[in-house]
């Protein structure tokens, strides 16, 4: 394991479990009158966001602030990027300001990896194109363990848990990171998507593939709906939204097929009425709000483990 978090594949099982356990301990801080720890005092975390984001940016900001780090928010709009500054020059500028960690979201797959070669601080990938979004996968895994992991969770992975990920897998960095992380943690992952939205070479991923949503819903513990990413679609992947909804959308009727204990997840932002019906999103089975609050504590755990210690072990 390195000092960056670029891909969920960087994490071994013990790394991932340590992050989940650390987050579980940090969860108690959220319930205290003083929700702040002094651990990263004097450190600077830069949020470098080239793409729009509500949840992830605010979540990283809250996480860094709760650990007493200073946060600099940088968004491409209204910065020198609009004047044509390259990623590298922006990175060197931030480096010169003494950033201990850079949280980057970028529209190009691999941007975080490139950035890691230019700066001395830690790089945390907060979503790069259609590639990866590892902290989202960690918070999803944390939510699954919290809801379905039973009483003694410390030290456990997600062994044997059946997770079905449904929708626009092709454009989803969340799906890719989740598949990699969940496989490492021992879960069985099933991808369900229209054939046109299934990624190339998906057979090399550590998961199974199906095109029949109803059959999979009956035997899953977790169903994760993905947003249909219209903004990344350069071609017609399905005939109409209505047809997509009828075959791959989760409505109340489909939700009734799920086993009683199963939970419904969505990384957000949702297209209510497309991949997920409003009554499903607002049902007690939905963990969508819990995912957001868990996002803060999981990102605190990651920031602490990346920045809190002495770095590389000798």
């Amino acid at each position: 394991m390195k000092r960056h978090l670029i891909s969920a594949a960087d994490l071994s099982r013990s790394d991932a479990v340590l992050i989940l356990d650390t987050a579980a301990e940090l969860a108690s801080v959220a319930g205290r009158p003083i929700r702040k720890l002094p651990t990263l005092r004097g450190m600077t975390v830069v949020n470098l966001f080239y793409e729009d984001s509500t949840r992830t940016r605010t979540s990283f900001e809250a996480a860094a602030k709760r650990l007493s780090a200073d946060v600099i928010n940088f968004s491409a709009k209204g910065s020198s990027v609009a004047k044509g500054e390259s990623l590298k020059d922006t990175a060197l500028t931030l480096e010169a300001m003494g950033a201990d960690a850079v949280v980057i979201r970028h529209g190009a797959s691999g941007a975080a990896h490139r950035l890691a070669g230019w700066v001395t601080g830690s790089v945390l990938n907060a979503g790069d194109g259609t590639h990866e979004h590892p902290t989202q996968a960690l918070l999803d895994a944390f939510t699954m363990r919290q809801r379905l992991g039973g009483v003694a969770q410390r030290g456990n992975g997600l062994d044997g848990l059946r997770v079905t990920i449904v929708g626009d897998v092709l454009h989803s960095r969340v799906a890719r990171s989740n598949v990699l992380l969940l496989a490492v943690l021992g879960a069985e992952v099933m991808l369900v998507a229209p054939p046109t939205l299934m990624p190339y070479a998906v057979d090399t991923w550590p998961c199974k593939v199906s095109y029949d949503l109803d059959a999979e819903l009956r035997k899953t513990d977790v169903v994760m709906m993905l947003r249909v990413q219209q903004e990344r679609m350069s071609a017609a992947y399905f005939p109409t939204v209505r047809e997509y909804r009828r075959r791959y959308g989760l409505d109340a009727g489909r939700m009734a097929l799920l086993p009683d204990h199963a939970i419904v997840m969505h990384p957000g932002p949702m297209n209510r009425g497309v991949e997920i019906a409003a009554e499903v999103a607002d049902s007690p089975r939905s963990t969508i709000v819990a995912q957001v609050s868990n996002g803060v504590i999981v990102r605190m755990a990651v920031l602490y483990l990346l920045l809190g210690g002495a770095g590389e072990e000798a």
Partner: protein
Amino acid sequence: MCAMRPEHEPKRAVSGPSGDQEAVGEDSALERAEASAGKTVLTPEEIRRALSRIAHEILERTHGGEGVVLLGIPTRGVPLARRLAARIGEFEGAPVPCGSLDVTMHRDDLRLRPARALQRTEVPPDGVDGKTVVLVDDVLFSGRTVRAALDALNDLGRPRAVQLAVLVDRGHRELPIRADYVGKNLPTSYREMVRVLLTETDGEDSVLLGERAR
């Protein structure tokens, strides 16, 4: 995250001030062998007697344990706090709330070594506001762990008073901190190390004094 350590590995078998022993390698089999060759300074019976005495002293000084909360500092302070609570319960018939307080995030030596896993913090349901909190740890050495614990406690609430109970005080304080209840005062040199073993974490009770390797 390089330093991630497997979760259930028995940590800090070699105990300085609850783990901030400077150069003692936590994982060194050599040092463990070295320490286990050390001489026994407290036997299981002596540990039992020391804890009974501390329990009585706590009762005496707090007028019957009124408003007392015991908080153990992980790893080995936690079972010690539980034992003290059980002992006080036996003597007085009334149970004393007992919990644990992880100080990792408040340590001053975090940047000196790889990030460590967090331990449990469990505060009794009534909290610490207005209570007499007795911090419990296995070894008092530099005092830095206790300083971190005071900081951590500050974020949890405002106790009426804070006291400190330790099984072994080995001296060499680096901060103006002293213990209110001491199981055994053990004058040591810097070259020595004190190792506390407890049934709950190590399968047996004893306190060993050995030479530090190197």
